């Protein structure tokens, strides 16, 4: 009987601790009262360490904002001076004797390379900033019922210029005008553009990209199929990792963060992304599953 009472009291102490409402009941010379004080002390220190974690997270976010903000000016300057360099060299090259032309040609190549690397750096910093905000929860993914056509149309519009340069056609099948799923438009667009961007990048010139929409009981699936080399079984497990770049694509532009970001975004809205390996079909295929 006596034991039951104590167990019950302890059970209540735990319950109130779990929902954060624990207060000491009474102060007397019993061992139970001493235990309560000790329990309160323990809870206090764990609340404190949670607060410290929260503060730490906030500092980290601030730090990342600083990096992203403070690097903007020097990067813009690099870009501007490189542009100037390119222009002046072009003028000098035209008005100089032949024997100097080769030297100017070389310098202009260096300038082009600086420009390319600057773009890459800009893209990398932008991606990392997005990623860290997403992971730290500063930017929330809010899923709500949204139109699929709006998503696919905007995504295609975003990659159209690059696709046009390579004469790649993009078509959508299986999508009704009023088809919906539960997703965050802005972030999911980011994810789909990343996948489409890869499809354009690794497609042969003049190729076709097909976006096929299918539906299961729980999900709407967006299949992105291209005529590129696809992903091998071996790479399938790794491509969604941070900064992973397959050996075959080391020559291509990119920093290896797009698919990781896509996976993070989808999982935050209760969806997921998977790859169909090139053992199972010719060409590449990614499938984005969005919750209905």
């Amino acid at each position, binding site marked *: 009987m006596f034991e039951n009472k104590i167990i019950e009291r302890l059970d209540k102490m735990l319950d109130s601790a779990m929902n954060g409402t624990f207060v000491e009941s009474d102060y007397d010379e019993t061992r139970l009262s001493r235990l309560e004080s000790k329990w309160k002390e323990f809870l206090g220190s764990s609340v404190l360490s949670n607060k410290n974690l929260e503060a730490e997270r906030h500092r980290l976010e601030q730090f990342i904002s600083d990096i992203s903000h403070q690097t903007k000016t020097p990067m813009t300057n690099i870009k501007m001076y490189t542009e100037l360099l390119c222009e002046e060299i072009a003028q000098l090259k035209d008005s100089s004797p032949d024997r100097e032309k080769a030297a100017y040609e070389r310098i202009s190549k260096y300038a082009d390379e600086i420009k390319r690397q600057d773009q890459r750096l800009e893209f990398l910093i932008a991606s990392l900033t997005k990623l860290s905000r997403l992971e730290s929860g500063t930017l929330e993914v809010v899923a709500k019922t949204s139109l699929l056509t709006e998503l696919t149309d905007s995504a295609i519009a975003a990659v159209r210029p690059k696709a046009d340069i390579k004469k790649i056609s993009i078509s959508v099948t299986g999508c009704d005008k009023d088809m919906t799923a539960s997703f965050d438009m802005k972030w999911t667009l980011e994810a789909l553009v990343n996948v489409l961007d890869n499809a354009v990048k690794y497609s042969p010139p003049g190729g076709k990209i097909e976006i096929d929409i299918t539906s*299961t*009981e*729980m*999900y709407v*699936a967006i299949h992105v199929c291209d005529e590129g080399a696809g992903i091998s*079984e071996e790479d*399938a*497990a790794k491509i969604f990792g941070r900064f992973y770049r397959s050996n075959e694509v080391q020559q291509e532009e990119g920093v290896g963060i797009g698919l990781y970001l896509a996976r993070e975004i989808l*999982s935050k809205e*209760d*969806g*997921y992304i*998977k*790859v*169909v*390996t090139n053992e*199972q079909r010719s060409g590449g295929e990614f499938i984005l*599953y969005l919750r209905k």
Partner: protein
Amino acid sequence: MSILIAENLKKHYGEGETLVKALDDVSLSVERGEFVSIIGTSGSGKSTLLHMLGGLDTPTSGKVVIDDKDISELKGDALCIFRRRKIGFIFQSFNLVPSITVYDNIVLPLQLDGRKADKDHIANVIETLGIAEKLKTLPSKLSGGQQQRVAIARALASKPAIILADEPTGNLDTKTSMDVLGLLKTTGRKFEQTIVMITHNDEIAQMADRTIHIEDGHIV
């Protein structure tokens, strides 16, 4: 922090000429919150391994540690209770109790344990798995995919230390399989659950964060 550790697990049947090594010196560890798939052909020893990890069978030698507890130290009732509290099972054949409703199936392990159901948690699980409208139905009225979703809810309801899934989509068609796996993956992540899943299918294994290959009783 490892939630599951298996050390030098061996399971041998018979002896001498007829000795069969179903598991031969298998060691692995699974981190808290990880989704791991164990892939192997039939007869590779993967089901034997899962049975050892879940305390459904005892190894010839070696040990299994779950949530800092060496389960070989547990005998009889203690092992039973440990399993009920710490491990959620999902089977190929769903194993729902046919005579009680979907909701009662989901909270059954909690009731057996004499614990109060965490209503908010369970409502959240039910919502995420999309079975809110089926709660008063008997399992036999549900499709295979829906039954397996109920089984996932049952495994999640008691917030176990680890969920063991044995070919969870073995009885389902491809489309339904992707539904069930997608939900297993998203709920695992959402509710910070550790999942170990057995499969013979590469495409299904791909859904996990990490894949362990097993062949002839060895990890390869």
